[in-house]
């Protein structure tokens, strides 16, 4: 466990002394802020309209602002995750520092877990920055905090799974660009897989739709904690890390 932390701290150091972390934080904050601002704008407009028409339909901040914004955050995450993971192993392979890690008295699992954990922590910090937006809702309104917390938990779980896949892809090459592009492709595919359910209900379409990471986020954004979705994300993360371990092992046999 100590070794995991040593590696994790080194990775975080790498993120935060280079512009990578700040670039990601800024981009994420600006884009999510923009989505929040839009959602808020629509909410205020429709609130005024319904007042003008004299309707007394209740409006819900959780349903009308938090839920759509969280769904958007989960999609934006897909685009930024490759940037977080692409350097993890590719850079070490390119510069030869992987030899230092592998010949040190730490296990592969410790190295992989440490690196993945650092990626998850960076993403968590990014999420934390977006939470500032929602804090305004609590200041001026009275949304329910539980669905929001569950939504954030879902975002973190989803990111954990995708970051594990990105970590795996990073072990396959010594070129960061290739690692990033391939991870981006996979993330995008895992997002759009769900679209087949729009026109087909056959078994294969259901399977593809099930594999989409976005489908499983729906329940979280509604504030529903569904075991099957948690299991999906956790097992996807395990699968990614398992492949990473196998890939590192094969690295030694081939190199």
């Amino acid at each position, binding site marked *: 466990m100590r070794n995991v932390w040593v590696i994790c701290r080194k990775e975080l150091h790498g993120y935060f002394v280079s512009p990578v972390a700040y670039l990601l934080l800024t981009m994420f904050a600006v884009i999510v802020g923009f989505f929040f601002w839009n959602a808020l704008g629509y909410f205020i407009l429709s609130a005024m309209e319904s007042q003008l028409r004299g309707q007394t339909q209740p409006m819900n901040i959780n349903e009308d602002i938090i839920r759509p914004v969280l769904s958007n955050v989960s999609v934006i995450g897909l685009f930024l995750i490759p940037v977080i993971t692409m350097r993890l192993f590719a850079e070490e392979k390119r510069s030869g520092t992987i030899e230092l890690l592998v010949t040190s*008295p730490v296990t592969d699992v410790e190295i992989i877990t440490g690196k993945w954990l650092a990626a998850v922590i960076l993403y968590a910090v990014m999420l934390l920055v977006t939470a500032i937006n929602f804090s305004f809702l609590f200041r001026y309104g009275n949304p329910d905090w539980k669905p929001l917390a569950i939504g954030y938990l879902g975002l973190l779980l989803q990111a954990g799974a995708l970051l594990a896949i990105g970590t795996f892809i990073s072990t396959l090459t010594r070129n960061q660009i290739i690692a990033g592009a391939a991870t981006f492709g996979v993330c995008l595919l895992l997002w759009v897989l769900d679209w087949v359910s729009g026109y087909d209900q056959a078994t294969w379409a259901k399977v593809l739709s099930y594999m989409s990471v976005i489908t499983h986020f729906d329940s979280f954004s509604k504030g529903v904690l569904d075991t099957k979705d948690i299991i999906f994300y956790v097992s996807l993360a395990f699968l990614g890390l398992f492949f990473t371990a196998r890939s590192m092992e094969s690295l030694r046999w081939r190199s």
Partner: protein
Amino acid sequence: MITVTGLTKRYARNTAVDHITFEVQKGQIVGFLGPNGAGKTTTMRMLTCFLPPTDGTAVVAGFDVLEHPLEVKRRIGYLPETPPLYPEMSAAEYLEFVGKLKGLSGSELRQRIDYVTRRCNIDDVKHKLLGKLSKGYRQRVGLAQAIVHNPDVLILDEPTAGLDPKQINETRDLIKSLAGDHTIVLSTHILPEVEQTCEQVIIINKGKLVATDSVQHLQNRARGVESVLVEVAGRNGALDPLTVQRCLEQVAGSGRVIVKETRSDRSIFEVENRKERSIRSDLARAVVESGWDLNELRSAAMSLEEVFLELTREEAPAHAAPVEMAEKGAAQ
């Protein structure tokens, strides 16, 4: 300290290391010598548990590299060909990271970092980013990294490659000064380096072990086959090299005679000295008595370099054959 038996590394298409067997005693400096691509790095990577061997065993500091890799890794320090540095870290941060990675902590970690920065002379660049250091400093930080956890065995892959002559000398001195506390294996393709720094040498070529001996022994062995270079000129212009060759062969104690160079009026011969004492005076007398002029006569003691070339050539008959044929052709 290191026992290697039948160590082999095969890839899909080629065999990088082929049944190498050798032993290294505690506290020794051993030079791992071979031309580029001989399998030095692959062997070192197997000793450091970076690559698993296809066949054979390697026991480092009492532990098998395949069965107890963590125990081996705890006891080795490794400097790969390019020092494994993170450009965004300062030397101090880097050494702290490596120290922790190797299992040090607390005051022990701080003491060791202080010790290795002094030992490797990197005090003045301690707070500089590694990416901004010169090649010589990078190499020294690499060395500091390798010894930070006070390992029993140090494995250095071409530690002087790419340094300027002054830095090479400094690095060699540093390595020599480390010998008492650590058993050191260093690889190189530069021969004088082995002669200057190492006590024992392991020569490999094309993945095969060619020779393993002490440097002293190899040099003696080299002197054992001393040969003499003789330059002979004809008195009235023309000179028949074949006649001279036959004459030189008849001198008591001379072995093979090779014509090295022929011009119109003079030729250079290389005569193998088979006798205990020098045959130079006998050769001189034979040349002068036959009516030729003796322009030059000097002993061509084989350097370690020639021994090395000789040994690495023997192991590759396919390549050696045409060379020998050419020599015979020239001799006849």
